[in-house]
């Protein structure tokens, strides 16, 4: 039977679709002939009219409102849309709904035996308790695929799990944890026993809440499919938007004619640059990125927007796009940064093609090189790569009755969105409210504006809610990438291994627009001599505009690129010196009292030597003899195995003189719960857990009683951008301070009430102990209100001041450190590389959230592995070849090595409970550890990313032919 809720939905939507069909008919298009099908969805019988072009995913999501099933690619590549049809896992995004006639469909919402009663399936429970849930977007697909596996194989091997989940991708990439969670669930299903707990180690010195294992506050909704991401939202009367993009990398727009598109029935608005009420350009640092390119203006990359359409359905909007007439005058394409710097290259921006020349100067490099016994020089290349977050960008703009605009979007910087949207609308910022939504991954790729401004312009023009959802193709083409770089490294050392001088020259391809290019390439440059004490340093970086897609923030923020170069060079140097690669690094490693290349004296929290030591011990324990000597496994004469090592450091926080502050608010309620609020972004990394634990710690109250509200510019104070591994430190401190001030206020109230000095009052596990009384915190809230005191505190935390590059002093207020060793196996006949093991020691100051820490380590290692081996955003003269998921290969569970995480905790004095950032550092050493291991295995030095197995095979073949 259809229940009322579904029937209503069905009627509404059938009506909506009829309109669309009418519009089509009016335009001589094929009328769709609807088919009536009956099926069961989550054990409920449903009769529904479907359209032949409707996929099962669309039926489930748009009409049955079962939005737990996610759409990541619509190419049968990512597995996010997996549901069970007659118990078999299928991809609902390529399954025509009409084929579900007579079938049983099971989605994540129906997996638990009695979901309405709040019961969980053991898989759901295991994913929560083991910390397998991060951004959560892939989780319904993971769980449904795993459910089918366990039905068939109740006792799966690791190999069974990896085969079954082979193409169910997770970009947070906690693959080892996902595997352990599935094993735990399998145990529970087989035995009827409870799901076994995880074995993840806590902090070495756990506090009351901080440093212990806790469930993520948002994990439950993410495993049941209840969690709402932007595309899961629907508003009555909502229009659907599409963007007409240039499709050519460089041109002058001659003419844009939208009259035919405007005339198409069902189209509510078509806008071009002429229709922008405020400023046209947006940008995070430089306003150089036009929201729309107008007639007579310059197209600088394929993704530039020429016109935007809002229509009753996405199909109609698509049809309207095809009716827009555009004439473009193609211009010569600048496809790489070296070409861009040539004086005869065409100028892409008014000030030319140089975004920034970044310089680092320390000592006298000429003197350093003259005093060196050995000098090496090599040039490295790194590729453009894409974040490939599994949730494509989506923004919904909705005009309110009060004349304001609400924008629903997954954004890493809600207040920056608000500013940029208001600027283009020509409105005061307060008239715009950004309501941040759960994000299916960000990794730096959701810092810039994507569809927010376009949706806002269309919503204001039509007075109706407008949704702009990118498909994977558009996501890949439009959003900023990781900078491709060319990095020349010259290094000089004494015979004993002491580094004397390092000179680097970097070219960074920042693409068509600045985005965060200047900042990214600054980080690449300042870190380009590695985490070493080097007396003489010179680094020059040219961040250049080209006609490639813009490049901006991406986990590692430039350091990923320069760490590959310097760590490859350090290994080469060790070999030339006849020195152990570990010893060479230990000898030069930064330590407390050391001075960085920018002249910063490190006064505390430098755990690099301990990271190196821990990784070395574990590596030597596992290696059979010298880890850097190639080994041939038994019965496989064509395989070689060896280890490689790399180290890195990465700043926490914006640094470079930028004011780095965050606001947070805490409020205690009479029911004894606390709400912590900040606009800082949760993109899967686990900030909400960190905030929850820090607030709970500061108030000595159970974390379950702390709610966290984030990313809403009306309801949460500005936590600043979620970038630069800064949120745990900066917003974490804001939350800690707000909670501490609240605690002091509570103590004052209690002191007066019980006539005891405030310092006698103790807060223990959610109770205030005063004079023999145990007062629940809700009671304290009531007392405060009775006194006219609000049990609410807003705190603005300012991180320690930093100095701009070139001025010496503290350029950053904290650094994280890491060492990683990777064991690889290289097939000498085919060049194929497999990573067997990665040992990762990470100094994050203090482990606040152990499950989150492990998730970041695993995901960071996998992202570094992808950067090394599989990922390459291929551009051919400014045109992306990798314009779909099938061509851009991110690591899957079959790539996952054994990952051993070793926490190192050198507390940072000013960090919350000693913590500093760790989201990026975990990803940085992986790539050079792998490429160094390849060299040790087969003697082929990788100087260009990603590793080309072909290059290895052909080099080895040429060598054996000699």
């Amino acid at each position, binding site marked *: 039977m259809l229940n009322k809720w579904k029937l209503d939905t069905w009627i509404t939507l059938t009506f909506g679709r009829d309109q669309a069909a009418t519009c*089509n008919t009016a335009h001589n*298009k*094929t*009328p*769709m*002939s609807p*088919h009536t099908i009956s099926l069961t969805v989550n054990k409920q019988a449903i009769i529904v009219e479907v*359209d*032949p*072009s409707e996929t099962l995913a669309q039926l489930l999501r748009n009409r049955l409102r079962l939005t737990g099933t996610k759409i990541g690619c*619509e*190419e*049968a590549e990512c*597995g996010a849309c*997996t549901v069970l049809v007659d118990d*078999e*896992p*299928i*991809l609902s*995004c*390529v*399954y*025509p709904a*009409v*084929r579900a006639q007579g079938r049983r469909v099971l989605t994540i919402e129906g997996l638990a035996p009695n979901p309405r009663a709040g019961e969980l399936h053991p898989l759901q429970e295991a994913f929560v308790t083991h910390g397998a849930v991060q951004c959560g977007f892939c989780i319904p697909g993971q769980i449904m*695929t795993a459910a*089918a*596996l366990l039905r068939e194989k109740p006792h799966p091997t690791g190999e069974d799990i990896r*085969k*079954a989940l*082979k*193409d*169910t991708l997770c970009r947070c990439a906690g693959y080892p944890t996902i595997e352990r969670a599935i094993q735990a669930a399998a145990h529970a299903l087989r035995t009827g026993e409870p799901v076994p707990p995880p074995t993840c180690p806590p902090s070495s010195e756990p506090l009351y809440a901080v440093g212990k294992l806790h469930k993520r506050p948002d994990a439950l909704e993410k495993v049941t499919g209840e969690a709402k991401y932007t595309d899961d939202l629907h508003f009555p009367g909502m229009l659907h938007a599409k963007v007409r993009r240039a499709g050519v990398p460089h041109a002058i727009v001659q003419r844009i004619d939208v009259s035919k598109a405007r005339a198409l029935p069902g189209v509510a608005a078509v806008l071009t640059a002429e229709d922008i009420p405020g400023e046209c350009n947006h940008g995070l640092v430089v306003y150089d990125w036009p929201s729309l390119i107008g007639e007579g203006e310059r197209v600088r990359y394929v993704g530039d927007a020429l016109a935007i359409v809002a229509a009753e359905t996405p*199909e109609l909007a*698509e*049809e309207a796009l095809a009716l827009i007439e555009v004439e473009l005058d193609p211009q010569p394409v600048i496809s790489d940064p070296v070409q861009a710097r040539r004086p005869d290259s065409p100028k892409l921006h008014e000030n030319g093609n140089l975004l920034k020349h970044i310089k680092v100067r320390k000592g006298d490099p000429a003197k350093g090189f003259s005093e060196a016994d050995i000098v090496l020089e090599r040039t490295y290349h790194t590729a453009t790569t894409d974040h490939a977050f599994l949730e494509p960008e989506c923004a919904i703009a909705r005009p309110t009755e009060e004349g304001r605009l609400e924008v629903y979007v997954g954004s890493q910087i809600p207040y920056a969105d608000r500013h940029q949207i208001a600027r283009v609308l020509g409105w005061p910022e307060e008239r715009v409210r950004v309501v941040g939504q759960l994000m299916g991954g960000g990794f730096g790729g959701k810092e810039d504006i994507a569809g927010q401004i376009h949706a806002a312009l269309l919503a204001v023009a039509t007075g109706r809610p407008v949704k702009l959802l990118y*498909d994977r*193709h558009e996501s890949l083409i439009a959003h900023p990438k990781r900078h491709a770089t060319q990095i020349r490294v010259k290094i000089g050392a004494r015979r004993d291994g002491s580094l004397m001088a390092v000179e680097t020259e970097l070219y960074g391809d920042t693409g068509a627009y600045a985005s965060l290019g200047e900042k990214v390439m600054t980080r690449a440059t300042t870190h380009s001599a590695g985490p070493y004490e080097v007396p003489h340093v010179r680094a020059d970086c040219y961040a250049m505009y080209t006609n490639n897609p813009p490049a901006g923030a991406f986990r590692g923020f430039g350091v990923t690129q320069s760490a590959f170069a310097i760590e490859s060079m350090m290994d080469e140097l060790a070999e030339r010196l006849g020195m152990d690669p570990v010893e060479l690094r230990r000898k030069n490693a930064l330590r407390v009292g050391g001075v960085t290349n920018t002249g910063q004296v490190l006064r505390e929290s430098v755990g690099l030597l301990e990271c190196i030591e821990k990784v070395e011990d574990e590596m030597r324990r596992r290696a059979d003899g010298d880890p850097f000597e190639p080994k041939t496994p038994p*019965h496989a004469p064509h395989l070689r195995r060896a280890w490689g090592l790399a180290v890195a450091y990465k700043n926490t926080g914006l640094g470079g003189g930028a004011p780095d502050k965050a606001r947070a608010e805490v409020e205690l309620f009479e029911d004894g719960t606390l709400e912590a609020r900040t606009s800082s972004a949760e993109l899967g990394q686990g900030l909400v857990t960190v905030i929850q634990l820090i607030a709970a710690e500061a108030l000595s109250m159970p974390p379950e009683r702390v709610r966290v509200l984030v990313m809403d510019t009306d309801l949460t104070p500005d936590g600043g951008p979620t970038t630069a591994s800064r949120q745990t430190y900066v917003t974490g401190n804001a939350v800690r301070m707000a909670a501490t001030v609240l605690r002091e206020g509570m103590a004052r109230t209690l002191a007066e009430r019980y006539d005891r000095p405030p310092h006698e009052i103790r807060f223990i596990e959610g109770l205030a102990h005063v004079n023999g009384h145990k007062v629940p915190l809700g009671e304290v809230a009531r007392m405060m209100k009775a006194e006219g005191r609000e049990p609410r505190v807003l705190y603005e935390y300012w991180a320690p001041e930093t100095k701009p590059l070139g001025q010496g002093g503290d350029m950053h207020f904290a650094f994280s450190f890491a060492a990683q060793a990777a064991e690889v196996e290289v097939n000498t*006949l*085919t060049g*194929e*590389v*497999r990573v067997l093991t990665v040992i990762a020691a990470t100094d994050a100051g203090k482990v606040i959230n152990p499950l989150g820490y492990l998730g970041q380590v695993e995901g960071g290692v996998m992202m570094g592995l992808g950067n090394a*081996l*599989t990922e390459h955003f291929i551009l*051919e003269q400014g045109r992306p*070849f990798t314009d*779909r998921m*099938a061509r851009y*290969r991110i*690591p*899957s569970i*079959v*790539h996952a090595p054994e990952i051993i995480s070793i926490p190192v905790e050198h507390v940072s004095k000013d960090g919350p409970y000693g913590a500093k950032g760790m989201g990026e550092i975990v990803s940085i050493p992986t790539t050079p550890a792998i490429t160094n291991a390849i060299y040790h295995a087969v003697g082929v030095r990788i100087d260009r990313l*990603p590793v080309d197995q*072909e290059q290895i*095979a*052909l080099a080895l*073949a040429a060598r054996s032919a000699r």
Partner: protein
Amino acid sequence: MQPFDYVRPRSLAEVAQLLEEADAQTCILAGGTHLLPEIELGRIRPRLLIDIKAAPELNELRYTNSEGLTLGAAIPISQLLTSPEVRRHYPLLQEVARIWGSVQVRNRATVGGNICQASPAADMVTALLCFDAECRIFGPEGERWTPLERFLLGPGRTALKPNEVLVSVRLPSLGGKSVGAYRFVRKGKGGHVTLAGVAVRAVAISHGVASWRMALAGLASSPKRVSEAEHILEAGELNEHAIHRAAQKAADAAEPIDDARASARYRAALAPVLAERSIRAVARQMWGYGA
């Protein structure tokens, strides 16, 4: 997705009748795992989809000793993994099915769809070539049969005429125990597209003597047989010399191209390596040596 119509014929006759009225904008819908993304991206704009999953003739998996194996064009790849007959008589097909796509895609994607997509790198098609597969085609002029080798005309091109449909492929019975191996290289393990692959299959005739087949994936404009290698393997004792010569024939037969994924040079270098490994794997299964 742009709108289109949909029909679900219940027999081959109904399919044929629909095809008679078909125009260039009519597409056959098998598993849909390739077609639907193409429609989504706007690269194919059909007016009508004919769903062949309800026509029994296109959905049979049948084995008889006299006729061998019939694989309906619309059977999903996953069905090869559960069929006892396939396991017993054509284990190479199971080996390839296991490394084919993902479990979700295998549950929908079909043998016929894979053949008609005509990818030069199609692993399953390469394996089918090792069994002398023949295609049963139905169209306005009735039924015709063509060897799979001649059905494939290059990337995206087949011998299907407009208004024709691939009904099934038939693999003759082998008259003995078949063993097979498929060795392949993709980029960055877990990548989708096979850069080069070599399928080898043998059927023991008497001790030390066997009939052999070898086929290549990703090394020419379509998967192709290497009969020169088969002759060498069948000619006499399988010694090191014969293995090397046969592997060299795979290299000689390869006509690889450069593309964004790999160079022709690399693909060519892989051909003898993979051929040798497949031959040895087959010999090991059949006689316990050759490794």
